[in-house]
């Protein structure tokens, strides 16, 4: 049997295992281990397992994962996210659809403290949905805003999606983080625009909230200043070359601990649960990464990436056409595959093609992460939609899926804008010091 045939059987087996609900990491381990054994012998697979698991678990640049997760967990558990929401509410709450816009802005702020979309949707859902219910917001708009706003967590740095992309493609985590800033702000703005348009067309969807007085506004902002300070310290520190991403993650986690200790919101119980939650999430992400380093060599040995590359070369398409096709594939895959699994499984095939065509890997990374983000709210397995459903159990799932459609369209618009103007993503990383 040829290597390519073995590879195709491996991919088919992997898809069957995934559809059978076998955890993504286990399925990749099994297929990778057996595939390498078939192509290169059992001892080769065994040695790879030993070396990759220890090498990745002791990889210094991956230390950002638990530290940024810890920062997000403490922020969520101590109610700091509420202050972000309150500040955003003071800014836009009294206009039509303002509560939904405040939710989006709050999600963007929380995303800058947490690398997780799920954490963003869950935390903001708990804070904002009740408030929007109280002011008779349409459930479609309120749940859609939370589900979509939560996805900003994967684009706005620190983002776990960027860390995984960086490790799989050997790109700079710092540069990728910075590349996500402006597209993240652009997307956030388009989300707010979508809410405004919805409320112009259907004013009953988002009635204005009560006005806040200037002292109330000032107080809300003052309370949010330390959180904004942490964001400025971490992201600004990376941009200014003061910190590496790892240092920024530790400084961010330390700063959040200090602030919450000072405010007496960090209890021992919350702290222990935040630590445990962080090691659990780290384990989830790291096991997928280790499994990826088992299956990727198998795919390389099977020569499937080369065959796909040659096929695409043979089509004679230009870089933008190829890029569009790849992103279209991601959009389709994102409707039924988990985002990280999708990255891990497809990057070894697509990345060499993309870089071979001279496409900037950082720009490509932003586009890919953005399509992952779309997968988070695409039926039938949009994870964030289910998270919102868990916070708002009385809202039908179909209503939430209808609610995310305008935001999904805005994500598509963002992709088109980024494809037309790559400098939006590349401006900050190119200006980065060090």
């Amino acid at each position: 049997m040829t290597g390519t045939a073995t590879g195709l059987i491996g991919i088919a087996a992997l898809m069957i295992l995934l559809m059978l609900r076998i955890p993504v990491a286990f399925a990749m381990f099994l297929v990778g281990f057996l595939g390498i054994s078939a192509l290169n012998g059992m001892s080769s697979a065994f040695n790879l397992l030993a070396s990759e698991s220890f090498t990745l678990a002791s990889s210094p640049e991956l230390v950002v994962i638990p530290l940024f997760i810890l920062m997000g967990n403490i922020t969520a558990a101590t109610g700091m996210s509420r202050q972000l929401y309150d500040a955003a509410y003071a800014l836009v709450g009294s206009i039509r659809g303002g509560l939904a816009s405040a939710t989006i802005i709050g999600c963007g702020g929380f995303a800058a403290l947490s690398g997780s979309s799920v954490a963003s949707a869950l935390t903001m859902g708990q804070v904002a949905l009740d408030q929007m219910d109280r002011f008779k917001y349409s459930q479609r708009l309120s749940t859609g805003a939370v589900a979509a706003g939560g996805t900003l967590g994967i684009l706005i740095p620190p983002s776990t999606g960027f860390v995984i992309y960086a490790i799989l493609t050997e790109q700079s985590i710092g540069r990728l983080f910075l590349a996500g800033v402006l597209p993240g702000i652009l997307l956030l703005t388009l989300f707010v625009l979508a809410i405004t348009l919805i409320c112009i067309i259907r004013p009953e969807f988002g009635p204005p909230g009560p006005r806040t007085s200037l002292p109330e506004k000032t107080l809300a902002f003052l309370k949010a200043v330390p959180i904004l300070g942490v964001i400025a310290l971490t992201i600004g520190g990376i941009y200014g070359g003061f910190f590496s991403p790892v240092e920024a993650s530790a400084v961010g986690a330390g700063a959040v601990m200090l602030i919450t200790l000072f405010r007496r919101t960090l209890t021992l119980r919350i702290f222990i649960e935040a630590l445990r939650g962080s090691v659990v999430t780290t384990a989830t992400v790291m096991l997928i990464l280790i499994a990826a380093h088992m299956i990727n060599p198998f795919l390389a040995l099977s020569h499937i990436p080369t065959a796909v590359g040659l096929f695409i070369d043979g089509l004679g398409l230009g870089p933008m056409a190829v890029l569009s096709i790849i992103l279209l594939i991601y959009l389709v895959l994102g409707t039924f595959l988990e985002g990280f699994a999708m990255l891990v499984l497809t990057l070894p095939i697509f990345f060499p093609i993309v870089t071979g065509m001279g496409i900037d890997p950082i720009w490509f990374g932003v586009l890919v992460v953005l399509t992952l983000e779309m997968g988070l709210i695409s039926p039938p397995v949009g994870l964030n939609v289910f998270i919102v459903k868990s916070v708002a159990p009385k809202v039908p799932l179909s209503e939430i899926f209808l609610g995310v459609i305008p935001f999904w369209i805005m994500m598509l618009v963002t992709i088109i804008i980024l494809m037309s103007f790559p400098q939006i993503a590349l401006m900050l990383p190119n200006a980065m010091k060090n």
Partner: protein
Amino acid sequence: MDLLRTIADRLIGLSATVGSLGLLVLVGTILYDVIGSQFGRPLYGALDITIMSFVIVVFGGMALCDRRGGHISVDLLERRFPPLLNRIIDAGSAVLGAAIFVTLAWAVYESARISEMLNLSTNLLRLPKAWFQYALCTLALVTAFGMALRAVEIALTGRDVRRDETPSR
């Protein structure tokens, strides 16, 4: 069975605590190093401590991750499968997970023996690499034990501890 579950939960809780302590060490080390560097006194061997405590963080959380049902899977067809098939899949994936972690522990154990033989250690503090590889093996075996027990429980009683309200000690 209850006794085994109690033992497993305590081991899972212990490894998560070890992982959490590793995470605290990680934060403390990097923070100390960053602040120290500003005053011209970086922490000697900070990178050694960082990378070795990261090993503990990663594998310390594996058992609790499984106990809380933290592994990502595609549950697109779950509701379409009959309950018996879902039960078989749950038990089967737990067996597969246990087999993977036993194999991983075994592979790293073999590698640790080589590290010991060659006296491999970290660059500055000369921490023996084998210590951390053995720690990884132990934590991987605790994970495998938790998964194997979960498979037996699902097969014999239908109980899946991942759906329990109180995740772990």
